[in-house]
């Protein structure tokens, strides 16, 4: 008897769950998006930046009348679960959002690692996910059909620097194929992705790679590599090794007085090379960035990149500069809003097909997905350290300042 009562209870519980899940994706006039996000743990800071971007964009869309589907106005709301910065928890929560809570539309988590853990789940349940915080190239080589990424992938990080070097060589009356490239990349998945992109770009221009050093993860010193740079006098020096690599490179470039016309490195900002080593020694470094508020992008909802900057600071006055993580998160919500409008439907399968034909210009840049689901319309931007300021210099169409070439360093 007892058992039967328990069974009945369980059935009733399951029934209640089913009932809520039918409602959860769209409740009344609200469309619910789901997201596992790092609110605690090692990614907490960036996770919160991401969440604030999502929230700001959702509010903006709602304030401007929401989304009209089939003659009915809907508002957007987002449900978050804290993934504690651990991939396993992220996958679990995605499963819960979809299977238990019935969410049909997903926003990405923070970081490539978490996105990698969640993508198989959304794929299994055929739920489209727009992600804005995973840059790893490997996300888009798995054949996922329901994953859409709006940021430039890692192999594009230093590609613009290679193109810029080619452009400068041709401007100076030479040939792009005369450019000699030196590379010092850390031996980790991110930097190797960056390296693969650079090798492709250098090959396309016919450039010669004269140094190709892979820095071990626990290497504290780059002076041997930089001495080689001194001897071989390349035209372009590329460095990628997270904050540690950027700080070590900036320090030793200064000490060894490396005189290369163009130097580009990832993570200059997070390593705060200007603050640590001074604006004289770091002058002319090119730093890739996904987005900057000074770029001349414009689109519906927020207006220009600068307008987004203002709107964000008005909502969160504690920020002195807007993290790009928030900007790209907001852009992901705009991509969803655009897809709902164009699909004129709430069916996930139809929305997935509509997402593949996205061609949207936003304050964050243009969004257009290729067959693998990554955004191919937004280039990686390059900022140059000019007298202690980070100014956008490439791509030239969105630049705020001309590039300083060759770089003028004062050691």
């Amino acid at each position: 008897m007892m058992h039967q009562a328990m069974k009945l209870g369980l059935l009733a519980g399951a029934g209640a769950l089913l009932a809520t899940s039918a409602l959860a994706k769209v409740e009344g006039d609200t469309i619910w998006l789901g997201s596992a996000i790092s609110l605690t743990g090692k990614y907490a800071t960036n996770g919160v930046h991401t969440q604030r971007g999502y929230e700001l964009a959702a509010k903006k869309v709602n304030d401007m009348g929401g989304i009209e589907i089939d003659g009915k106005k809907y508002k957007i709301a987002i449900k978050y679960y804290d993934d504690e910065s651990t991939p396993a928890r992220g996958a679990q929560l995605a499963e819960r959002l979809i299977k238990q809570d019935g969410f049909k539309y997903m926003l990405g988590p923070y970081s490539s690692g978490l996105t990698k853990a969640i993508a198989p789940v959304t794929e299994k349940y055929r739920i489209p996910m727009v992600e804005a915080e995973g840059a790893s190239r490997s996300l888009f080589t798995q054949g996922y059909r329901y994953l859409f990424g709006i940021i430039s992938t890692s192999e594009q990080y230093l590609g613009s620097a290679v193109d810029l070097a080619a452009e400068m060589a041709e401007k100076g009356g030479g040939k792009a194929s005369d450019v000699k490239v030196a590379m010092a990349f850390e031996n980790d998945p991110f930097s190797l992705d960056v390296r693969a992109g650079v090798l492709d770009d250098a090959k396309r221009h016919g450039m010669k790679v004269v140094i190709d050093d892979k820095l071990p993860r626990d290497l504290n010193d780059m002076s041997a590599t930089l001495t080689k740079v001194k001897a071989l006098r390349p035209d372009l020096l590329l460095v990628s090794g997270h904050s540690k690599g950027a700080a070590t490179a900036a320090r030793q470039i200064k000490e060894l007085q490396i005189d290369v016309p163009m130097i580009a490195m990832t993570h200059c900002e997070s390593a705060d090379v200007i603050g640590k080593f001074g604006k004289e020694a770091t002058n002319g470094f090119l730093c890739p960035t996904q987005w900057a508020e000074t770029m001349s992008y414009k689109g519906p909802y927020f207006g220009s990149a600068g307008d987004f900057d203002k709107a964000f600071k008005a909502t969160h006055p504690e920020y002195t500069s807007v993290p790009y993580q928030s900007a790209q998160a907001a852009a992901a919500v705009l991509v969803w809003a655009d897809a709902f409008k164009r699909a004129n439907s709430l069916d996930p399968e139809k929305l997935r097909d509509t997402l593949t034909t996205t061609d949207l210009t936003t304050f964050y840049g243009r969004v257009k997905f290729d067959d693998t689901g990554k955004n191919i319309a937004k280039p990686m931007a390059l900022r140059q350290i000019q007298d202690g300021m980070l100014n956008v210099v490439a791509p030239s169409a969105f630049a705020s300042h001309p590039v300083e070439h060759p770089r003028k360093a004062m050691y």
Partner: protein
Amino acid sequence: MDNIDILLQAPILNVQLLLDGLMIGAIFALAAYGLALVWGVMNVKNLAQGDFVIAGGYIGYALAQAGIHPILALPIAFVVMFGFGWLLYKWVISRVVDRDLFASLLATFGIAIVLQQVLNLIFGPEVRTAESGLETLSFAGGLVTVAEIKLLSFVLAGILAASIIVFMKRSRMGQAIRATAQNARAARVLGIDTERVYAFTFALNAAICGAAGVLVVMIWVIQPYFGIVYAVRAFIIVVAAGLGNMPGVIVAGLLLGAAEQFSGFILGAEFQVASVVGMLLAVLVWRQMQQARLRQALQ
């Protein structure tokens, strides 16, 4: 082998690599010296050696943030880390010093993990550095550059090593340490407080590492999990020099620094550490063969 050609065509670059190597090696030698001391006297293989260096680096960084010049932070870090080492001995090491190898390995490995996490909690995972404000000397039209801070560190490391050697030879404590290293039981019989000698030795090691750390934060960058770099180098140097061979430790440290620079230049950065470990292997094989010959002579 193109890179060897470069060195032959521009021999001045050898000078750059050698200078860099020796100056880097001096700091590795300091960390290794402390390790050899603790290893030789107490037979404790301190896996937290590198983390002591990083802890010293953070003391230097914190003092620099507070407006004290990092070079002046060096003696402060020395004293603070000495006290830290003493406490650590009393709390943990004294309990494992007479136990078998694994007890001390586990204990020091545990200390390393705790130290990393505490540093991470206090200072965060960001990369830190302290600026000495010194310039770079430039020779041969910029082909050879020497950062003054590296030169100064080399000199400071030399002074520190020399004063430790004099201390070990001349002072009562130094003699007690050496006596304990030779035979702890006999030293105890002769009235030496070996417990105190052990505590002092371990504290001195932490202090040396602390000083090395301040040099590191001025020359490179630090991060809570960066200790392994120095721990691995210190072990390589002590093993290559042979236990109990203190001058050998310094020579091996300098050689290791130079070897790393040359192999990094010729083979590429990815083989920098690998080639040094390869050389260590060669040294061990060579020594083994020598000893085998000795054994044969005895027969």
